[in-house]
């Protein structure tokens, strides 16, 4: 049992993906085609992209509820700036805007010691307001068609968002597992006071974490905005829940200290599979939210069971 639970922590997401794949394979003959699979993965890219950032935040013992508003803000900036300064600079500028929101989150959380829930929830509302103000309350159509290539183009037959997803995965893998910053993030999530007496600048670590989450939200916004070719001041409502689902389902512990970046990537794909499956059986879009909520609760339920079982096993003196 213990062995199973340990494996679950690492590979639990595979069970979900496998179950989903088997279901879809039977439900539709189209599923087992390369094109379909690639599409599913490409659609999973936003959740995975922001999921990387969220994984970092959860590992540090916090989380960020402002991601969808940051995405909206970046989207609006893209739409306004592209005609003015061109695509590359507009992307850079909107990423800087997004990251600054994250830095602000980090400053409030670390220096003013406001808890992450209140900080990022409040920030989310403020930023949504700012996005609407800047956009004048409406969507902004982007006329520069070449911008679409990021979100809808293909390279060597593979959708471009997948490249973004993989490239950022590599970057985050490096950050989480290969840098001292990544080690500090996990340590802060594991025991903040212990890290402090080890001389680590905890405030800087937290600011870095929230800056990176916002940066991933900015990148996801670039991909999303490019697909729609519209700057959306109310982009992706409820998306934050999807991102949290992806992070937790992927096996990153909500108690902090342990990241599972592979899990986040795969969970992003899994959530995309759910969407695809629901489309397939012609269910309304509302069911998507419902099902993501259910999956989140299921993932948390299993996580709770796991922790309880390990604790009981430890109390009985079983070696774990």
């Amino acid at each position, binding site marked *: 049992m213990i062995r199973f639970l340990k494996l679950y922590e690492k590979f639990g997401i595979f069970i979900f993906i496998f179950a989903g794949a088997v279901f879809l394979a039977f439900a539709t003959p189209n599923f087992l085609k390369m094109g379909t699979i690639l599409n599913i993965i490409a659609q999973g890219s936003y959740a995975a992209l922001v999921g990387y950032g969220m994984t970092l935040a959860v590992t540090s013992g916090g989380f960020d509820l402002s991601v969808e508003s940051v995405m909206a803000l970046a989207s609006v900036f893209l739409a306004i700036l592209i005609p003015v300064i061109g695509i590359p600079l507009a992307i850079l500028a909107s990423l800087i805007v997004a990251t600054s929101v994250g830095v602000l989150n980090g400053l409030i959380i670390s220096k003013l010691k406001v808890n992450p829930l209140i900080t990022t929830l409040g920030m989310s509302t403020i930023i949504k307001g700012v996005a609407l103000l800047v956009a004048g309350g409406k969507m902004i159509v982007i006329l520069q068609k070449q911008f679409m290539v990021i979100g809808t183009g293909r390279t060597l037959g593979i959708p471009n968002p997948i490249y973004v997803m993989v490239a950022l995965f590599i970057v985050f893998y490096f950050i989480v597992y290969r840098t*001292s910053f990544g*080690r500090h993030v996990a340590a802060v999530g*594991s025991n903040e006071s*212990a890290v402090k*007496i*080890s001389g680590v600048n905890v405030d800087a670590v937290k600011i870095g974490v929230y800056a990176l989450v916002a940066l991933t939200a900015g990148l996801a916004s670039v991909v999303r905005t490019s697909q729609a070719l519209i700057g959306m001041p109310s982009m992706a409502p409820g998306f934050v829940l999807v991102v949290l689902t992806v992070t937790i389902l992927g096996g990153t512990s909500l108690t902090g200290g342990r990241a599972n970046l592979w899990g986040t990537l795969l969970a992003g794909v899994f959530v995309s599979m759910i969407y695809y499956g629901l489309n397939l059986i012609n269910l309304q879009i509302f069911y998507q939210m419902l099902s993501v909520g259910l999956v989140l609760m299921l993932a948390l339920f299993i996580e709770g069971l796991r922790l309880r079982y390990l604790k009981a096993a430890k109390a009985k003196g079983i070696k774990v």
Partner: protein
Amino acid sequence: MPNVRDAQTMSVTGELLRTEGLTKTFPGVVAVDGVDFDVRVGEIHALVGENGAGKSTLIKVFGGVYIPDKGKIIMDGKEVAFSSTHQSQESKIAVIYQEFNLVPDLSVAENIFIGREPKTALGTLIDFRRMNSRAAEILATLDMPLNVKSFVADISVAERQMVEIAKALSHESRLIIMDEPTATLTEKEVRKIFEIVKNLRARGVSIIYISHRLEEAFELADRITVMRDGRKVGTRQIAETNKSEIIEMMVGKVVKDYFAQAGTSTEAREPLLEVRNYSVADAVEDISFTLYKGEILALAGILGSGVHRMLQSLFGVIPKKSGDIFFQGRKVNIDRPRDAIRLGIGYVTEDRKNAGLLPAMSVLHNLTIIIIRALSFLRGLFIRDGEERRRFEGIRTTLDIKMSGPGQRIIYLSGGNQQKVLIGRTLLTDCKALILLEPTRGIDVGAKAEIHRMLRALADKGLSVILTSSELPELVNLPDRCIVLYKGRKAAEFTRETMDSEKLVAAQIGQSSGEGRAHV
């Protein structure tokens, strides 16, 4: 006060509670060993002993927290058994632990009547008016100056103590057990608590009073019982004993030089760290001392002496009020742990679980967290795995840390091995001075001796160690010098030659005047 018996009508020698051969064992240790103990009606019975003597376990048996393995508890001549705190309460026993059992967000009155709030006529709502007036009544009978509507979160420790006592009285308790009630109180507050305790006695309530401060026991108690190593050493009438007899009973025989040999000679020592006129708010006042190169210095003191806060401040965990620190002859500022680490000072917390370990992480990562940035290329950008492993292996062999592998999670190591990891963590920084708070708390005997040997070996290589401990053998035998603080001030100093366990205990509990005052 309803139902509290009139002291006048009762014989003072009437027995309230007695134990026969009470024994409680935990894996590997007999915490209470065949104790015969008795409390009379309307007496204050002081219970004293060193840390680990078994006092806490004994009162937890009375409180229904622990169920004894052997022996009887007899109350009013009848055998009773408490298998829960509730049953103990039913028998009119109240235990006031050091960590209070109060809800900070409720008022004084609500805390006193928690779970038994007076109800309105319909029996559904709490009758706040009646509750507050009854609470005020109880507080008034004991002359406690407290507003029943204040939130417990807003009142002082002494006042919380009063709320606990009032709660006990509202339960019509006949025996109130107080565990070090005055450890963190000011002189004035102590006086107030004393008055209340005497007042309780006058009302026929019996009190078991645990304290580390002998003078309090002698001022307050009618009888005194000394425990040591789980056994009762003896019970005396206060009038028929004196402090030195009690200290002798407490200390027993501490085998000297049980640990590794003494360090280098005391001549030609080179000072490493000098603390001058150092004060920390609510902790220590005007403390000066010098830590020499390669010496093990102990700062000893009971709860409330300020030693822990003194050492925490020295590492920048809590701020100082005034005073200077000189390190290698240079005046330095230590405002936060980072400053201390940069100077070459290491620190091992007494609160291993909450402030030391990174529970979610592996042994390897726990150890190297302190140097991981320095271990990487380009200011932390690329961790040098090989170097990290090499440094880890070095510490692992030096300290002989036992584990299944570097990837094992730290929480699955034994307490002794966890402590070694924390010490190893500081050693990785090549520190020159090491501050250790309670270095062997919660560690089994074998690992204790091992850590002592290790510290001595490190000191022989030139590391300066400054530690505090609440365990007598550790204080007597490990350090080269021992400075005793009492209520925030220096009370005595012992060298290896003048060290005497009885005098040390005496100094710690505020009895350093007279011949006990060695080498001040």
